[in-house]
């Protein structure tokens, strides 16, 4: 399977503060990749790097096989981008902005734009200044899709939208893209929307990807393991393969990927009286993996 995005050992810092540290990431073509992280984790930074808007200190990034810095123009022709703030020229009407944007793309599909306009219930004569945030988000989606991009980069596209509009936005996006087998890379910190649409999940914590896996396997393999002890737990050591743990007076909670007999044996050896293994929701996994991050 070819890669739509391939990032290796990518580093980026702002004023000495490291945001991305040796980041490795790959997105398969045709997949819907959810890029999760807490606020300020560096999700927007990575997307801007992929768009060629930001430079980086070390590593490499290839998008659709092109270098975003040196092949920016060629690359941007094949990308649709929706920003978090949906900032448009507020003095334009929706129709003017659509015409203005169409001037940049040879592959602009006017019929598709009209179709999307009707489907998303957008009025061309409406000034953008007067639009609600939901309407602006829909307009952003139209502008990102109408030139039929191979890759859609969405940077927290549903942030600030109410639940109804958020769901509509995501459903429309998936419907429109999936039928043509295009790739979607979207960042978010809203877990429920990810669970609904994503094929792959990458979780960014402290500048690195702590998890990058198909969503289904993530939910299958991650487990919360509660080991109860009859003695104080300060001497309990985490067994190998544990992502994180929290120590309480009489028990320890472990977050493990692929729980097996080896872990159970290790905990028993350390004096565990009882071991309880439970499946985890994506939100629990996300919270546990990013806990303690500034």
């Amino acid at each position, binding site marked *: 399977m070819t890669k739509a995005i391939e990032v290796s050992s990518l580093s980026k810092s702002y004023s000495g503060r490291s945001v991305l540290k040796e980041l490795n990431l790959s997105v398969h073509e045709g997949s819907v990749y959810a890029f999760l992280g807490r606020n300020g984790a560096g999700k927007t930074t990575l997307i*801007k790097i992929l*768009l*060629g*808007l*930001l*430079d980086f200190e070390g590593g490499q990034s290839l998008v659709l096989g092109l270098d975003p*810095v040196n092949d*920016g*123009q*060629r*690359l*941007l*022709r094949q*990308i649709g*981008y929706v*920003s978090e*703030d949906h*900032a*448009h*020229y*507020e*003095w*334009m009407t929706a129709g003017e902005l659509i*015409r*203005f*944007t169409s*001037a*940049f*793309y040879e592959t602009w599909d006017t019929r598709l734009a009209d179709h999307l306009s009707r489907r998303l219930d957008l009025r061309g004569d409406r000034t953008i200044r007067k639009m609600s945030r939901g309407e602006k988000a829909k307009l952003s989606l139209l502008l990102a899709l109408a030139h039929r991009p191979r890759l859609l980069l969405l940077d927290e596209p549903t942030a600030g939208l109410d639940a109804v509009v958020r769901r509509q936005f995501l459903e429309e996006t998936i419907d429109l893209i999936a039928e043509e087998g295009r790739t979607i890379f979207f960042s978010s910190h809203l877990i429920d929307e990810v669970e609904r649409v994503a094929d792959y999940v990458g979780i960014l914590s402290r500048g690195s990807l702590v998890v990058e896996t198909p969503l289904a396997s993530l939910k299958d393999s991650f487990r919360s393991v509660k080991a109860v002890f009859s003695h104080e737990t300060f001497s309990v050591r985490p067994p190998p393969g544990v992502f994180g743990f929290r120590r309480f007076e009489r028990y320890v909670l472990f977050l493990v990927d692929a729980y097996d007999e080896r872990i159970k044996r290790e905990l028993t050896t350390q004096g565990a009286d009882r071991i309880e293994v439970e499946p985890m929701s994506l939100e629990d996994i996300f919270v546990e993996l990013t806990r303690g991050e500034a």
Partner: protein
Amino acid sequence: MVRALIWKELREHLWTVLALCLCLVVLKPSLPHLAPEPWLLGQQNHDIAGRLVRTLLAIYAVLLGAHTFGYERSRGTLAYLLTRPVDRRVVVGVKIFVSVLLLVVGGAISTLAINDTRGFGWDHTTIRVLKASLPHFSALVLLTECATVVSCFGGTVAASLVGGSALCLVLVVVFKVLSLGHEAGVPTCLLSALGLSLITMRVQQNAPFSGWRKKAWLTAKTMVPAVALVGAGLFVWNLYLTLFPGPMGAEIVRVAPEGLYVTGWTLRPPLGCLSQCRSYRVDWEGTATRWLKFRNVRVLSVSPDGRYLLAEDFRGLLGFGELRNDVVVLRSDGTECHRISGRERFIDFAWGSSGSKLAFYARQLLWWTGPYQNSMTSNAMLLPFEFDPYDGPRFELRVLTLSSGEVVSVPFEPSVGDREAFSRILSFDDRANTLRLQLHVPSLESMPIVKIGLNGKVIEERTSPKNSVVLPADWFEIESSRNRDWMVLKRQKGPQKAWPFSLGTYKLSLALVHKPSSNETQTVTVSSPDPKDVFFETVIDTEAENLADGRLPNEPQVFWSERYGAFLILTDWTKVQSISPQDRILKERFTIRF
């Protein structure tokens, strides 16, 4: 795509242009009240209204530059624009093109709206308040470019306004104070604008729009060679001029018994900058020798015996103008004899008839709108000054003995007039120790002439009408013979309007006419010059901007010479001709050899 970008830029700048138009609409009715006094119509250099409009255009220019990226950044639309598949050089190029285009449009609107405003109270006269010119336009482009560069570096509109102005000031300081080519104002402006445009484009091509360290590094990398290249070129040019001054010209000439005192220039920038001048003494053979090497002095007057000179010591004011630092009395060898004022003051003076004393007074000026060397010419013109009424006594009349440096105050206070009254020193008889003063009182129709002793007592008092000499229409007196019975008049016609650069032609005529009477108590009417009185005519092509103190560039200078008993005329910066009242034929005298 380019069309779409241009359309967007024009729409975004619409409010800036409308704001300019609104300012002009508000400004236009008030301009006549700000226009100069009628007697200053020839003194276009002091037009307040024109300065106001030019300031407005300068603000507009910075605003256009700051708007280039600052507006997008403030609105958060820059990322949207830069994620379109378009070469960033095209984006920057279109933005700069539209800015410059709107600058031209703004200039045109201002010219059409404001120029040729009728003056308040004298509607028969048209006042030109806007002098668009290439150097002026280049300076506006430079302002726009500076603000554009700052807006590229993450500045919002407000930050770009401040930063752009500061950057422009820095460039002006670098170019002007360090003498990097300020002899050649136009190329400097154009080079700067061109260089900045290229730099802006280069920065945009290579550097992403965040990461200020990398951008600063890339900018430095691209700017340093460009600045070094331009700077080195200008430095070499200045060095060349220093080593080989090239064709010099006589800008200011004063006659002394043994020759001429000349302020010479190698090049004449649109704005005079005295730091580029050199002082020469020219003998009657025309051979010039450097008189003062390092001081930026301009000789105001030479004592009748030629032993002393009254000179102004100027200091360049960051290239924008000149600050008169001191008025000093120098010996003919250039050494300082006496310092008269240490501040920016109006000086009026008269040499004693024997040349051993100097009567003078100096006063702080509140506002100055006209020529100040009233004693250099003897014509009785009104002096458009406004004095600071709180700056000590009105006159502070003093007499300096030149050999000893002793200063004596003359306790004279005119009994007439109000706070704005002032006097001119008409003459000083240092043998009889009497002074003749002419009092000017705006509220009175007459100009009293008093003769006083050095003890301040009035010996004689007469009145003279204000317009004691009535000249024919369009003609101005520029020089009189010593006993004031002959005078040279000047007429200056033009220019023909030709926007945008106001390039036009002036027709200049000089006429030698006889003045019927020199009695100061009467109004003397000088008849209109007969065509045969006109002894010199020339056509001068110039930009309106180049009029300094109402004078055209390379305008012939006329001065009376006792040695020849004739008027000397300096033309083409170096040629000295003469015309005497007796034969009235223009003769070649000598050419100044610098």
